[in-house]
């Protein structure tokens, strides 16, 4: 009964309060997302990974840093190690769980920095036009002209190896595409009648950009960020693999593959399980991104 009432309240065509209107629009988005099976698979996988990261201390069977050279390179299931051990005898399963924390930490930091920078640069550039546009866009072009990994390598080399610097380097290379998207969106929105209308109410450029243009850019950015997450994780993993990201003994997935590489022919699981973890999280983000695209598409609700 209560759920049915709640559903009616949420799907009402005539909301009676600001709160109801807001919840209703979220709920409708959620319904669209839920009807997309693949996106839900992505969301569930991500939720599992996040839960694994949060409850890593509970779920882990071993200390991820504890070395036991007597137990090195055990196969899956041997000696009480669910996914075997690596070259220093550390439990791979436990390391994967703790590694999830690092991956999610990287993803969150990059997701907060890069799109925000891109959004600000893109909307300011698009709305202001003129020389501000030219200057900002040429800077963007310069960043875009470098291959992403090479640029990240250069930043890490300059800043020093480490996970924070890897995040910073990835963010610095990731923002230009967002700036491009935000600018393109702004250019189409800028001359629309509803922006004219708010200008005629006397609103200044700061208000127009932050209150009226940003909300419309954010949905396409969210989609793009979600789809890029896989790339970001892979870049982070690549930096880890090259020894420029997370430093040993940290259980970062890329670094784990890098360590396992030496034994890949005889002890395949050492590199394979972290590889599968990266694959799973990348795929999950891609599936979710596709679903979000359907959900946030402004052409929704034409019925």
């Amino acid at each position, binding site marked *: 009964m209560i759920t049915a009432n709640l559903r009616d309240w949420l*799907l009402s065509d005539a909301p009676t309060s600001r709160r109801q209107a807001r919840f209703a629009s979220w709920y409708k988005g959620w*319904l*669209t997302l839920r*009807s997309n099976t693949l996106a839900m698979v992505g969301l569930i996988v991500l939720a599992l990974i996040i839960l694994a990261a949060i409850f890593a201390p509970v779920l882990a069977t071993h200390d991820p840093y504890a070395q036991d050279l007597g137990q090195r390179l055990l196969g899956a299931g041997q000696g009480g190690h669910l996914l075997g051990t690596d070259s220093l005898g550390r439990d791979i399963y436990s390391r994967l769980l703790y590694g999830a924390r690092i991956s999610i930490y990287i993803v969150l930091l990059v997701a907060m920095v890069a799109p925000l920078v891109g959004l600000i640069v893109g909307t300011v550039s698009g709305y202001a036009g003129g020389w501000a546009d030219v200057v900002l866009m040429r800077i963007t072009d310069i960043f875009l002209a470098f291959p992403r990994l090479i640029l990240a390598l250069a930043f890490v080399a300059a800043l020093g190896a480490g996970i924070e610097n890897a995040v910073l380097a990835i963010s610095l290379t990731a923002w230009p595409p967002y700036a491009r998207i935000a600018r393109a969106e702004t250019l189409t929105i800028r001359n629309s009648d509803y922006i004219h209308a708010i200008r005629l109410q006397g609103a200044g450029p700061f208000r127009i950009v932050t209150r009226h243009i940003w909300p419309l850019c954010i949905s396409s950015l969210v989609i793009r960020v979600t789809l890029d997450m896989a790339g970001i994780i892979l870049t982070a993993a690549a930096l880890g693999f090259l020894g420029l990201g997370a430093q040993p003994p940290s259980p970062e997935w890329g670094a784990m593959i890098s360590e396992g590489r030496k034994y890949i022919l005889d002890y395949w699981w050492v590199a394979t399980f972290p590889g599968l973890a990266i694959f799973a999280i990348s795929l999950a983000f891609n599936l979710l991104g596709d679903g979000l695209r359907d959900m946030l598409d402004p052409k929704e609700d034409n*019925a």
Partner: protein
Amino acid sequence: MSETLLDVENLRVSFTTRTGTFEAVRGISFTLGRERLGIVGESGSGKSMTGRAILRLIRPPGRVEADRITMHGEDVLAATETRMRQLRGGRVSMIMQDPKFSLNPVMTVGQQLVESLRAHEKLARSECRKRAIAMLDEVAIRDPERVMGLYPHEVSGGMGQRIMIAMMLLPGPEILIADEPTSALDVSVQLQVLDIMDQLVKTRGMGLIFISHDLNLVAKFCDRIAVMYAGRIVECCKASELHKAQHPYTLGLLNAVPDLEHPRPRLEVLQRDPAWRDALSVSART
């Protein structure tokens, strides 16, 4: 009206959405002979959906159902997609609202005319070109040779729509469906384009379905008028007897238009009666 070109019975178009099934067209019936039938209604009345449904141009999640749609005795509902492509353009043509969106922007007018003809008849290119030029001449385009080489953005709205008419009539269809063919045009051009269309339809003895929101315009260019409301035909009458129309909706549409010659301090506002929605569809069969 001895010969029936198009026979539609109990046509339904529905869309399934999250909140249920939305019925755009709810069981309408009509026939078309060698005459001009006007379908009038406001946005959302299902008039455009009717035109598209006849050509089977409605994509999923939309569904078309009917007891019968026959074109010259041929069952449209059972036709294969290949056969449908032959029918569209060959037997029935459709003119849409805005020529800007109906003409391919990267092909010249001439190329598009020739292509559309070659899609239906195996003719030599030079012959097609000759017929295309003759057709442009028929829609009152001066200097058709030059217009053949123009790109769609280089022609005005009125000329674009005349080119569309030429293109649609080139393969010699029997039925023309014109969906708001002049709403995007200026008033002075509107009449000119409609006159041309009207002349061609008459001289070729075609059947015309003229879909529009403008009751007066339809009355001027049609023999029969079907007024649609909420997916049903609420009234059907001869255009010459429009002033005898009975249904309050038809009357409301007529009276809502501000008239330059007969000013009124207030315009009449249509009071929509929920009963109109439930009333059964009037048949427009002859």
